[in-house]
């Protein structure tokens, strides 16, 4: 059976998608996991579903709607918890469900063709367009430049904000920019991994890396590698088994986490016995 043009295009798209997803998720995910923002990121993801619904309703690209909602909800949580004194976790919980509710309402109000909800909730490689891949590619470059140029500044603000304020007046600006970039990263990865599963794409790879390294920069590098192995493998399984791609990627990543955990445990045990 020779590969036809359709299959060739599909493989290239999948490969590039896996590369860019693992770069963006690795960079954003290491920040999210280190700074314990996993719940906030989950909130951003689900709130952005409201943007997807409105996007369909008014007939613009749903990803643009999701991006606007994602960034607004990230900054909205900050506003509600700092300025309105609402508990941060409650603010996240409210925006989380509110975004989902808006999304469902507007998708049902959209006349004519209704999009496949499953593909947005659990991811589908078939709906990923060339524009999505290009957007993820641009996002990869932006994140590499951002974290590369401002590495120390971002690391130190994220580690100890109070101390950072004693020498820098840029603390809030960096926090807002970083959170917005994370929201965009999440939104751009929704097509492939789905609203429900995208957060694991950010959180599992850094947790795999943290099993054997504690240096921030190395966690980023290993997250990207682990993320690529997970997405590429999950993608392949999804293609041959006909299962939603988001689910197979997350499943593969968890298996990798378990395997690495086992290897680290064995290596420690053996090196202890040698001593």
């Amino acid at each position: 059976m020779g590969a036809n043009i359709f299959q060739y295009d599909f493989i290239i798209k999948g490969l590039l998608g896996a590369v860019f997803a693992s770069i963006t998720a690795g960079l954003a995910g290491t920040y999210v996991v280190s700074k314990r923002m996993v719940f906030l990121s989950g909130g951003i993801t689900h709130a952005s579903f409201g943007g997807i619904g409105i996007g369909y309703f008014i007939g613009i690209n749903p990803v643009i709607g999701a991006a606007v909602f994602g960034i607004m909800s990230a900054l909205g949580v900050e506003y509600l918890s700092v300025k309105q004194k609402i508990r941060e976790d409650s603010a996240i919980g409210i925006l989380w469900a509110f975004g989902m509710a808006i999304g469902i309402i507007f998708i049902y109000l959209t006349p004519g063709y209704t999009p496949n909800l499953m593909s947005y909730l659990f991811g589908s490689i078939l709906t990923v367009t060339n524009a999505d891949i290009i957007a993820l590619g641009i996002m990869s470059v932006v994140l590499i430049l951002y974290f590369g140029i401002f590495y120390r500044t971002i690391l130190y603000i994220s580690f100890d904000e109070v101390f950072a304020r004693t020498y820098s007046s840029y603390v809030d600006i960096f926090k807002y920019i970083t959170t917005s970039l994370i929201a965009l990263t999440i939104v751009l990865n929704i097509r492939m991994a789905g609203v429900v599963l995208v957060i694991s794409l950010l959180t599992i790879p850094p947790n795999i890396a943290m099993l054997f390294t504690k240096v921030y920069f190395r966690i980023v590098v290993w997250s990207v590698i682990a993320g690529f192995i997970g997405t590429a493998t999950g993608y392949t399984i999804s293609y041959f088994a006909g299962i939603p791609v988001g689910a197979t990627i997350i499943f593969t990543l968890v298996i990798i986490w378990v395997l690495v955990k086992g290897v680290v445990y064995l290596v420690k045990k053996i090196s202890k016995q040698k001593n």
Partner: protein
Amino acid sequence: MAYLFEMQSLSASYDAATVLQNVNFKVSESDFIGVIGPNGGGKTTLLKIILGLLKPASGKLTFNNELLTEKSIGYLPQMSTGDINYPVTVRDIILSGLMIRKSIISGMSVNDKKKADMVIDELGLTGMANFTLNELSGGQMQRVFLGRAIIGDPKLLLLDEPGNFVDTTFENDFYEKLRDLNKRMAILMVSHDVGTISSHIKSFACVNRSLHYHPSNEITNEDLLAYGCPIQLVTHGEVPHTVLKYHQ
């Protein structure tokens, strides 16, 4: 002797609440001043003003030009500010003390890293450069944060409740270290733990809304030791209160 900074009839407030009122205070090059007073009396606010985190509501704060241009202030905050589970190494934390003189896009040079390793050795953390905080004891963590405060060779070192780090076994070493550092820099230490620190402190500032400065001859270590039992210090202010000497 050259002064490092001077406060003239300075007041500070949060929203409507005045925390410090009419403070006149001057710190000189080789000072080692203990700042004592009740919780909520304005001790930490005093440090915030010096660090520029809070603008004075009225009055004047003048820095010595050298201190200002060299950005020569080291700061050891209270324990709670950094996340001890954060994936950042001892060397990187100490290096962050140099950020005050760097731009937002700077990395660290080979010399910066050598300097960090010297500080690590000086503070008895040899071999722990690549450890993270959750692998260290309380006393070791305290030394890491002290390293971050002194890596830039500041002229003025601000310490906020260093006694909160616990670890009594290291306490003596820590205060010995401060005495060493006092040969190169002025130290301003906020503490409620007067008993243990008093042997190295040269003078006291009692802060409770207002600030009363006590030169060395007023409360000397000999005065405190003469009793041989727990003693009490009375501080000034609208709410007079006592400070207990450290006891078992």
